[in-house]
Every structure is written in C-alpha cells, then in structure tokens.
C-alpha cells in the first residue's frame, strides 16, 4: 500500500507540471485561454495546440524513454553510476548529426533525426561487435566509455576545423525541445512498443540484481536477457536522442531517484522511473522557457545543471 503513495504524489506532480507547461512560457495564458487554444482559429491556437501541447507531450515521452533506458542499463550493469551514455549511443548519434550538419549543410534538416538514429544504432553495433555476446559487464562498460569519448573527441575536432557550423551543432548537442512539434511526436510513437517489452523483463532483471551466478541458478538466461535489455535501452536512447539531441544526465538521475523512492523491485522501479524522467524533463523545459523570456535555453542545459551536482554527490557517497 505504501508504495502507492509516492506513485500518487509523482503522478499529481506530473499532471500539475503538464498544466504549468501549458500555462506558462514567454507569454503567460489564463486557464481559459489554454482551453480555447485547443480550438482551431482561436487566438492561442498556435501557442497551445501547435507549440506547448506537442512540446509537453514530447517532454513526457523523451523523459520517460531516456529514464527507462537508464534503468535498464543500471539493472543490467548492476551499477548505479551506469547510464545509457556508457554505451556510446548518444555520442554516436551526436557524431552522426554533426557530420551531417557540417558536410551536408544544404541538405534538408528533416533528415537529421534519421541520421542521428542510424548513428546511435551503429555506435551500439560497434560496441557489440567489439565486446561480443558473452563479455563481462565491466568490459562492456569500459569499452562503451572509451568509444563514447572517441566519438566526443571526433565531434570536438570537427567543430574546431569547421567553426562556421559550430552554432547549429552545439545547439543540437545540448539537447533541446525547441522547434519540435507533432511530426517529431509521430516519429517517436513506433518506439513506444519497446516500453511494454521492457516492463516484461522486470522480473528477470530482479534476478540479475542478485548476482550473475544466483540468477543463472534461479533459471534466468542471463546472457540473452542482458542483450535484450541493452538492445531495448539502445533503441529507446537512440530514438529519443535523434529527436531532441542528447539530453544529459536524465538517464542517470531519473532511475536513481526512482530507486530511492520506490525501491529496487523492477516491477515498480521501471514505471516509476518513466514517471520521474517525464517529471524531470517537464520541469527542465518549463524552467528553460520561463527563466528569462523570450530567451529559450536548451532543456539539456537545465538537466545538466540539475544532474551534474547530483552525479558528483552520488560519486562522493558511493566511495
């Protein structure tokens, strides 16, 4: 019973943040205006229906996807400091996006999500190719971090030799919900299939948590389970990053907070993580839009501002 209280609180928080995201922005609207905004032809139709509503929904989707990916990776690697970043997916997507922006400056920007998606998935395939099916999680993590660093340094190199493109690339690399609307949501929808798949793995992830040997003796197929869970995490991250750019720290902080609030049982942890992730990104985007209007800060900066100190605190505590 006790478990439902935090669930309830976080759901209420989510709903109030959705309302806040619709009400506030560079121009604050009344509740009345917000309702009118759903009707075509009204004054606030663009602001609400074409701008704030899709952006809010996107924040929920992307926040939930990145957080779920983080929880899966942390579950498999069995390390609270792990996150999808250590698989090099977001950096791979970033590299693909920057290469596309620098070397094809005149090609359509609408291809950018597809390019980033392919980059992210390729990064995961390279990692898999290097580590193989049955390698230890440590090898996987270290190889992943090394690859991620390699991609990041390649991005830096490209931006140094092509300074003209730096603004657009940097903007994309900080992760932002600016300029995203219904088409981007439609692109994300097919990937939501992965969420029930991930939830289906919850029980087996609990077994992995007991240690590899115990899990095997309890009947879990650890290797294939790990592969499936990581593949889902990779796909979720690549899809989310391809739309919004790599929004930092969300995949790390959200599962961690959720574990604090709801405990480590994956049946509760996975849905809770998605809620926390959605709440965090909604909050970040709300702050990013309202802190100094009409300036729009990228939401990725906000999550980094929140996430980096949390990460440090985590590092110090786990020592």
């Amino acid at each position: 019973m006790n478990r439902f209280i935090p669930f309830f609180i976080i759901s209420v928080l989510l709903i109030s943040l959705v309302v806040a995201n619709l009400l506030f922005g560079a121009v604050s609207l009344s509740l009345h205006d917000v309702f009118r905004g759903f009707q075509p032809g009204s004054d606030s139709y663009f602001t609400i229906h074409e701008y704030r509503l899709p952006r809010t929904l996107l924040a929920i989707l992307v926040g939930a996807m990145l957080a779920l990916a983080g929880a899966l990776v942390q579950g498999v690697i069995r390390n609270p400091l792990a996150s999808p970043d250590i698989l090099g997916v977001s950096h791979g997507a970033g590299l693909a996006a920057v290469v596309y922006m620098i070397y094809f400056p005149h090609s359509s920007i609408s291809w950018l999500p597809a390019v980033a998606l392919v980059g992210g998935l390729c990064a995961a395939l390279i990692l898999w190719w290097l580590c193989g099916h049955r390698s230890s999680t440590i090898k996987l993590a270290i190889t992943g971090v090394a690859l991620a660093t390699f991609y990041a340094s390649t991005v830096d190199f490209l931006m140094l030799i092509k300074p003209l493109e730096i603004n657009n690339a940097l903007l994309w690399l900080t992760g932002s919900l600016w300029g995203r609307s219904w088409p981007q949501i439609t692109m994300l929808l097919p990937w939501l299939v992965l969420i029930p798949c991930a939830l289906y793995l919850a029980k087996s992830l609990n077994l992995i948590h007991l240690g590899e040997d115990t899990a095997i003796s309890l009947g879990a197929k650890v290797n294939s389970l790990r592969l499936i869970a990581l593949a889902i995490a990779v796909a979720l991250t690549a899809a989310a990053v391809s739309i919004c750019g790599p929004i930092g720290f969300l995949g790390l902080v959200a599962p961690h907070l959720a574990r604090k609030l709801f405990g480590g049982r994956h049946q509760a942890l996975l849905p809770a993580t998605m809620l926390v992730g959605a709440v965090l990104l909604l909050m970040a985007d709300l702050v990013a839009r309202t802190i100094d209007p009409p300036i729009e800060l990228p939401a990725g900066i906000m999550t980094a501002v929140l996430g980096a100190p949390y990460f440090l605190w985590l590092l110090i505590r786990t020592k």
Partner: protein
Amino acid sequence: MKHFLIMVLTCASALLFPGLSQAASDNGPHPKNTLDKPVTVQDSKGTFTIDYRPKRIVVLEFSFADALASVGVSPIGIADDKDPSRVLPAVRKIIKPWTSVGTRSQPSLETIAALKPDLIIADISRHAGVYADLQKIAPTLILPSRRETYQDSLKAAAIIGKVIGKNKKMQARLAKHQKIMAAYAKQLPKGVVVQFGVARDDALFLHTADSYAGGVIRALGLANAHTGRNDSAYRQTSLEQMLSINPDYLIIGNYTHPSIVDKWEKEPLWSVLKAAREHHIFYVNPNVWSRCRGIMAAERMGQDLVNVFHGNQIAAKP
C-alpha cells in the same frame, strides 16, 4: 493519441466554458490591404507569394532589420538576443521600439505568435528547422543571412523590398548605397591587403574573402588576404598562421577585453607582423562588423575603413 487528447480537452473546455466557441470566432484575421496583383519572389525555399502589404513584420536576423530600416519600415519584433544594443545604431535611430523575440538561434515561437505578425523574415541557415512552424504563424520569407556574402545580402534586401511593397524605394536605396560605397572607395587606396577578424578570449577568427566582411572590403577596392586553402567564411587562426597571412592592415573586433590579440601583442612573434611593425592594427566594433550585416552595416564599415586610412579615431566600443 493527439486526436484523443484534443477531443478530451475540447470536451472538457466545452463543458467548462459554454459559449466559448462563439468568442473564438470573433477573432478574425487582420484587415489586410490586399494588392491587385500578388507579389511573387524567389526565396531560399522556392517561390514566395504574398497578396497583401505586410504591416506587422517580425525579423529573425539583424540584416533583415537593416533592410527594413533602409526603406523606413519598422519591424514589430526582432530576434535581438534580448540585447537591443546589438541592433546597428543607425538602424535603431530609424525604427520604432520593437519587441524582442529571443535569440537568433532559438527565437521564441510563442512570443512571435503573440505579436500576430503578418510576415516573418527568417534565416535559412538558422531557421530551416522551424520553417513549418513559422509558416503556421504567418507567411514566412526565408533568405540567407548567417552564411551570406555581401552580394547575397544586397540581393536579400532587394527581395525584402519587393515583398513589403517598397520595391522602388529599395532600388533607390540600393543605388544610393552603391554611390556611398563608391565614394568611400575613392578615399581608400587600391589593392591594399586588409584583413578583419573577431577576437575572443582564447581564439581569433579571421573573416575570409568568402565572408560578409571580406566582400565589403573587396567592394571598397581593397584586397583580401590569402588565408589558406578551401576557405570557409570564418577561420580560426593561430599567431604563426597569422604571420604567414601577414596582411598590410589588420582590423580587429574584440568580443572580450582582454582578448587573445591583447595577449599576442606581448609576444615577440607579433612584432614581426607587417601590420604591427607599421602600426596598422585598428580596432572596430565587432558587433557591427560581424553580426549586423546589411546595407547600413556595410556603409558603417566603409566609414570605419576611411577613418582607419585617414588616421581618425574610430569608436571601437561595442
């Protein structure tokens, strides 16, 4: 998902606020001064047609504000990075107070929508990604600005002139611009190599022959320095590369104080530079030379160069 949500919320709103749909329909489009013959121009996305004379214009780059001001038209909104001083002083003098719509890189679409513009002028380099959204707010003319050359900038101004129904005035202004620039060119020596660069705390970016500033320098009868192979418009340059480029005149815009140039001045290598030896290093306003672009910006740059070559003090303060 989308439709379901809209349905739920519309039902809720209909229940909560009866008579709402009535209110919504009162807000018709703006009264527009319809033209007899629609104006059609080519912009960066193809054909742009407008059948009325726009009155409420939002511009998302400084060069477009410059073009409007050149024919005495005030934009109602400018993406000025929330810093009005970034708009060229000469432009500020002409136009009426405007609303900032945020940064040029990520302008606030809801602020733009709240201004109810009837024309948006956007930059293909920065705003291609939100072109569809901008069009939902108002007809959007999308032209080059960030990557543009001096000639591109003048072409863009001519297109803007047509779209806002001031073609004649714009053509006259452009002809006057050519005269002004020719007058400046007469006061300047021919073929002297002039290089402009903006200096930050840790880097100097030279604006090459392909850049806007490079084009203005050439248009004034001066010469561009050879900055190296396959130039892009801006090129980060080290002190040693600077020596091999070695222009006759070096024009610097400092974004920060002290900038990297201030640090380099203390290095022995710096004193070998031709411009340093002959005291031909001058400081200009980096905002005017790098960010503004446009008709009046080019004229101000010409004035600056005349001052440089005639030994007058120029205002370098941003």
